[in-house]
């Protein structure tokens, strides 16, 4: 089983889908000859040509809007937003158009579209190359919101996203692009959109995370296991629609929940997990539901001490777990 990095797995998924289905094409800024600023599309322009890997004008809303139009005509676009931070001009197209098309036309018109967007901090990107924006979109019926945390899942979920007949927003933890390595199976490797994944079994508390924070969560669980805290780790993977059953089942077992995300706390995705647990696992809870998140400031600041202060990390997560375990 070959080992590869996150970004290699993402590239492999696109390569496989371009080869499998001639309706699939990639569109975005610098995705062609340059191969993307993170090299996610490296080599694909040379392999598939300018009709399958299309350099767009530097304008995010029309990367998505043109993708929607092509999808309406029957193609399967993969739209790349260079950094998630720049997705806001496309918010109208994603929320007013792609997400509502199926419902507003009674299923007559559908938008089989993937939007890939590298997200997250810890890479010295400052306010506008570090944001986590999942909370804005994991509120929107009609969208699917996916965030992988391993190369195997990145490949399998991205392939599923390309084959999905609905619009899928695929946030990629860019700090993990080269940092996270892992095995990728040589089979088709499809990972279904929807189910969360219990990546570590435990009985003392449940740790919910996704993307880069899931990677850290596993490290933190390892740290505290030496202290006798048996943490269960759940990689949420699909944020919308949420996998309520897996979330609730884990807390029924452990009685405690810690949610970790690098997006800021208030109104963040963790609030929805907490609400699900309050609603469906109230009598199973032995402690308050805790959230470890970025602070409520506008975005991740640039200077390293500020960035480090902002970001959750394995040690911060381990400390939060100790406090919750002791409750």
């Amino acid at each position, binding site marked *: 089983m070959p080992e590869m990095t996150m970004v290699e797995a993402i590239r492999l998924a696109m390569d496989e889908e371009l080869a499998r289905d001639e309706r699939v094409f990639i569109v975005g800024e610098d995705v062609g000859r340059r191969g993307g600023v993170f090299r996610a599309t490296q080599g694909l322009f040379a392999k598939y040509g300018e009709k399958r890997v299309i350099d767009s004008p530097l304008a995010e809303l*029309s990367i998505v809007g043109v993708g929607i*139009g092509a999808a309406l005509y029957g*193609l399967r676009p993969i739209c790349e937003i260079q950094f998630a931070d720049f997705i806001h001009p496309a918010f*109208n*197209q994603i929320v007013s158009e792609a997400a509502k098309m*199926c419902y*507003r*036309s*009674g299923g007559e*018109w559908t938008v089989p579209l993937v939007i890939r967007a590298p997200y997250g901090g810890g890479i010295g990107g400052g306010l506008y190359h570090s944001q986590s924006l999942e909370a804005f979109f994991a509120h929107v019926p009609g969208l699917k919101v996916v965030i992988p945390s391993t190369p195997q899942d990145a490949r399998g979920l991205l392939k599923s996203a390309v084959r999905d007949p609905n619009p899928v927003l695929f946030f990629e933890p860019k700090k993990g692009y080269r940092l996270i390595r892992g095995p990728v199976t040589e089979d088709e490797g499809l990972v279904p959109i929807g189910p969360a994944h219990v990546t570590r079994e435990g009985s003392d508390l449940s740790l919910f995370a996704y993307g880069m924070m899931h990677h850290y969560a596993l490290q933190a669980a390892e740290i505290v296991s030496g202290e006798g805290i048996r943490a269960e780790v759940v990689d949420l993977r699909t944020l919308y629609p949420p996998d309520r059953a897996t979330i609730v089942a884990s807390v029924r077992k452990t009685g405690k929940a810690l949610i970790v995300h690098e997006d800021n706390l208030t109104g963040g995705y963790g609030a929805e997990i907490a609400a699900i647990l309050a609603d469906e696992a109230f009598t199973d809870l032995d402690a308050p539901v805790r959230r470890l998140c970025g602070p409520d400031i506008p975005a991740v600041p640039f200077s390293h001490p500020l960035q480090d202060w902002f970001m959750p990390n394995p040690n911060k997560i381990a400390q939060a777990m100790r406090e919750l375990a002791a409750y």
Partner: protein
Amino acid sequence: MGERRSAGRAQRPRANGKVKMASTATATAPAKAAATDLPLLEMFSVMLLARRLDERAWVLHRQGKIAFHISGMGHEATQVGIAYAMRRGEDWLVPYYRDLALMLALGLTPLEFMLGVYGKRGEPSSGARQMPSHFGLRRANVVSTSAPVATQIPHAAGIGLAIKLKGDERVVVTTIGEGSTSQGEWYEGLNWAAVHKLPVVCVVENNVYAISEPQDRQMAVPNVADRAAAFGMPGVVVDGNDVLAVQRVMQQAVDRARRGEGPTLVEAKTYRPVPHSSDDDDRSYRSREEVEQWKKRDPLLLFRATLQSMGVLSEAAEQAAEAKAAAKVEEAVHGADAAPYPDPAVEGLGPVYVEEIHHA
């Protein structure tokens, strides 16, 4: 001639920056020989039907029978001119909410329109999920449209891109009001179409007002089509009240797109003789004299005069067309009145995702 190329012979703004309205829509000589292969009486009938349906919707609103109406009145010549340049059933349309006559020309039935106006089950655009006249008609290649203006322009560019990538011999036409051309979506979509030489024709139905704001609050140029030069595509101004002039300009633009020569920006100058919608009161922003002045150039009156001068429309033929339109309107209203409302458990709940689509 009813059309002119933009930029070179664009009309000049007045010293105060305002566009002199009377000269933006100069009368056109009746087009004769070029139009003879068009089904002129059929075109007249579609314009007439659109007008009578539209008038009835306003009446239904005043009677309290419907909640909302947004009108296409005054735009009939522009829209029928567009339709009769398209390969209907083959070419695609990404419309906007004033396109009643265009929709009728492409196959929307009067009953389907009235089902939308009443918010009744079976309305084909959205199953009455959307407000009336937010058109879409899959069987006629008419894409669903929303209410945030100009979002349809990047969609048209994307459809044009897909047509080009697949090598199809189709054209996508998209329509929009002049106020909506202030949106970035319009610029981005047309820029895409120009950069990639896509088979897109964008028609701006310039009716002078964006709700209350006249054109000079939207742009500093006298013609929307003047902006075509900045995209690197042809821009054409046409008298939007002259159906044959619009058809001729559109035919050139559509043919050009189909030949792979790229997009065209067409600006059809017309006028909205009624309020923006049934919730608007236009007396606060324009004089009655201005509106009455326009009514002398009502596109139906102009086309009737043209057809009469060509000897195509006899009094008997006109009466027959009126009677037919009236009967269709009556039938549509009765059908919509009797139709059931949608059910929250069916049309309300979904389909949110494709997996929930259950075609009957």
